[in-house]
C-alpha cells in the first residue's frame, strides 16, 4: 500500500499511550519469598506488565514498571498476599 491514499493507518507499537507507568500513584511490589509462582497475578494484569514467574527456575514474578499502571489487581488477586501496593516514589 505504498502509494495509497493518505488515510489513518497505524502499525503496532509498544507504548502507544506513552510510558503508562507514569499514570501510577501506587506501585505493586512483590515479596519473592511469599510468591508461589502461581502466575494468577500475571493472568489478571490488564496491562501485561508482569513478567511471569517461573516455577522451574524458581523465579518470582517481576514487574515492567515502565508500563504498570498501578491498578492493584495483582495485589488484590494474589492468593498469597505476596504483593503490596506502595506509594509511588516511596
Amino acid at each position, binding site marked *: 500500500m505504498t502509494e495509497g491514499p493518505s488515510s489513518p493507518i497505524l502499525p503496532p507499537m509498544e507504548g502507544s*499511550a*506513552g510510558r*503508562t507507568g*507514569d*499514570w501510577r*500513584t501506587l506501585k505493586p511490589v512483590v515479596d519473592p519469598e511469599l510468591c508461589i509462582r502461581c502466575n494468577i497475578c500475571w493472568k489478571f494484569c490488564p496491562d501485561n506488565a508482569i513478567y511471569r514467574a517461573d516455577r522451574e527456575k524458581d523465579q518470582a514474578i517481576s514487574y515492567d514498571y515502565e508500563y504498570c*499502571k*498501578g491498578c*492493584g489487581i495483582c495485589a488484590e488477586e494474589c492468593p498469597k498476599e505476596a504483593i503490596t501496593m506502595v506509594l509511588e516514589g516511596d
Partner: protein
Amino acid sequence: MIEIIQISRGGSGGVTGAKILADAAMHEDKFGYSQAIPKYGSERRGAAVEAYVRFDNKPIRLHSPVYDADHALVLDESLIDRIDFEKVSKDGVVIVNCTKIPEQFKGSGRKIALVDATRISQELGLVLSGFTLVNMTMLGAFAKGTEIVSIENLVKAIQEFWGEKRAPKNVEAAKRAFEETKVVIA
C-alpha cells in the same frame, strides 16, 4: 490579560480546578472575566491533562490554548517536564505540588510557590478511588503564590461549585494551602 497553564493527571481534579479558578477570577473586581479551557484527549486516570485559564477585565474572545503563559500550575511534580517553560513568563509564578524546589528550576531565578498539596489533601480525606484530589489545594497555593486572586473569592468560588455539603473540606484544603505555601526564588 493573565494567562495560566495547568498540568495535572486525569483523576486529580485538574479540569474542575481550572474551572473554579476561572470562577474565582470572575469574582475579582479587577478581572470580572475569565476562561477555563481543558484540553481534551484521552483523559484517563493518571494520564497527563493540560488546562488553560485566562483572566481579564473585559470579555475574552480568544478560544485557543494558552501558548505563552504568565503562570504555571503543576499539580504533580513528575509532570514538570511536560510544560515548555521557555514559553512561560520569567516574571510569573510556577506553583508546584512539592516541598522543595524541583531540579528543573534550580538557578532559574523563577518565583516558585511550593506546597505539599498531596499531603494536605490526604489529611483532609480528599481521596477518590485511590486518587488524591489536589485541585482545590493547589488553588489555595495559586492564590498565595500569585496574589492575583484573593483567598476570599477563591473560597466563594469553591463554595458555589461544591455546594453546602461538600464545600467545607475543599475550602479547608485551599485555606490550608494558602497558609502553608512558600514562595521562593529558585
